[in-house]
């Protein structure tokens, strides 16, 4: 009975999400909620891509911001320096640049596991940060790239905030469908197999290093798209976007929301951005709150909010 309701409900929910600025126009003229929701969705895409690695693949990457930032810079540079202003081109460029970087870094890190993998991704991402910080001619150095113009989709100008929001939310929905498809596919099951017992997978004939690399590149590309959307939303890219802070934020989102699930990274993004944007104006210790949250969840609720919800649901049904 319940199955019948899911698809129509999801369709309605999706439609409501995409048209959010339009039906809230009356009571929300400042567009604050739209802006926050837009940023949540951008980071939800980023977190979903990280979850492909962390949750599904068992590859704890602390350097995922390298690809987010690479995509952001690519989009910014494409628009500002190269004069490309068509969305498919710039988004494609962002995904490609991020994928290329993921291929480079991935080749070096993919043969290690667990903590060693974590450290290596962190170190390489930080090196990308240092390069971004110092390569002033391309990245704008410590100033970053400012005043990035939004691209066009065919003839449609994406500068108006409503349209930018529609782009972000539509992309978010597309990514959700993509991640869902990948997770449920044979490839997704292979990733789970590698996560659960890589030794056995090798013994079965899977080239696990190469498969992990493919997941790394896929996740990196999606992160790059998130980065491009961030660059256009904020009209700004800085070295912080490749920094360790951004990588950690994404990790916190995945873990607090619930790794290995579809809803988890999205919920996590909402929670983290709520703390950073709304709570922090009342209490100026956002990082401390996030740190405390993170510690609490690692200690007490490792499966995240989705895990808590799932356990509560199971208890109610008994």
């Amino acid at each position, binding site marked *: 009975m319940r199955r019948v309701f899911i698809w129509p409900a999801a369709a309605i929910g999706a439609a409501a999400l995409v048209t959010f600025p339009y039906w809230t126009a009356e009571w929300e003229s400042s567009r604050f909620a739209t802006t926050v929701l837009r940023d949540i969705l951008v980071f939800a895409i980023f977190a979903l891509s990280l979850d492909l690695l962390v949750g599904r693949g068992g590859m704890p990457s602390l350097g995922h911001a390298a690809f987010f930032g690479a995509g952001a810079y690519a989009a910014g540079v494409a628009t500002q320096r190269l004069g490309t202003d068509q969305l498919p081109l710039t988004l494609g460029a962002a995904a490609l640049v991020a994928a290329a970087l993921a291929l480079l870094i991935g080749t070096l890190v993919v043969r290690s596991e667990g903590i060693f993998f974590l450290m290596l991704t*962190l170190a390489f991402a930080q090196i990308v940060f240092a390069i971004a910080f110092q390569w002033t001619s391309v990245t704008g150095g410590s100033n970053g790239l400012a005043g990035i113009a939004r691209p066009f989709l065919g003839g449609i100008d994406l500068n108006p905030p409503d349209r930018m929001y529609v782009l972000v939310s539509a992309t978010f929905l597309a990514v959700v469908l993509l991640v869902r498809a990948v997770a449920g596919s044979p490839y997704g099951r292979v990733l789970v197999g590698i996560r659960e017992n890589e030794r056995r997978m090798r013994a079965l004939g899977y080239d696990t290093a190469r498969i992990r690399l493919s997941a790394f590149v896929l996740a990196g590309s999606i992160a790059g798209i998130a980065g491009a959307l961030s660059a256009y939303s904020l009209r700004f890219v800085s070295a912080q976007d490749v920094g360790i802070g951004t990588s950690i934020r994404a990790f916190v989102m995945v873990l607090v929301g619930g790794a290995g699930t579809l809803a988890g990274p999205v919920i996590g993004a909402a929670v983290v951005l709520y703390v950073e944007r709304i709570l922090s104006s009342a209490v100026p210790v956002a990082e401390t709150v996030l740190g405390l949250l993170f510690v609490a969840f690692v200690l007490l609720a490792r499966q995240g909010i989705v895990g808590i919800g799932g356990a509560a649901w199971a208890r109610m049904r008994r």
Partner: protein
Amino acid sequence: MSSELLFQQALNGLSFGALLFILAAGLSLVFGMMDVVNLAHGAFYMLGAYLALSVVQLTGSFWVAMLAAPLALGLLGLILEPLLLRRLRGRHLDQVLLTIGVSLIVVDQIGVVWGREVRSLAAPAGLDGSVALFGGDYPAYRLFVIGLGIALAAVVTLVYRRTALGMHIRAGVEDAQMLGALGVDIDRLFALTFAAGAALAGLAGVVAAPVFGLQPGMDVDALLYSLVVVVVGGLGTLGGAVVGSVLIGPADTFGKVLFQEFALAVIFAIVALVLLLRPTGLLGRIRIAR
């Protein structure tokens, strides 16, 4: 480059290497013993520096700070290990994640307590001048750092190889579970090790402050460098920390002189090369820790 400049840069590289050793040794020790990469290591380094700032303001003595800050950090480590890490014994990856959370809290609180502007700490009187060396003037403090690094390496090696505690640590690095089965109090050993790692990070913070100053983001730099050192030199071994710092210190210094903007690319190249040839680092052992 003139030979004088070359020599100066070589000394710079050595003093940076000495500093890196003090910094990285603690990280390597904690990993070797507990299979935990303490990602709050940079935050501890930062806290040590800022504590030193306050201690110097209070007492006027750098030397008191150099004693007090590591002690305070050690105490912090002694509290944190049983409070947080011990509950996740055996879940190495989760313990690492925990240290990330701790790092977020510590760094943010440093900003709350001390503010987020750039600060500086003067070298102690007596060491704030220059020494005439090989025709040029070289900062006395940096020579002190080199000496301190060597002395610390010697002391640590001595403790490591000649004392009962050192024997326990070496055995624990090898196989902590076995050591516990033999009746050694693993809880206490782990707490002490973590405390020692934190103390060393704090010491590094104090010692580095007169050279590098204090600013937001110094925790990340310290963490990155210590990670690079131990990855290159080899995780879990003290010798690895030595090899790594002796390599990375001069490489970074000369890289910055020669390549300026892309100095870190030099480090990147070294790390990549080492990893491709020897995935566990130059002197490291294979660790399967999840």
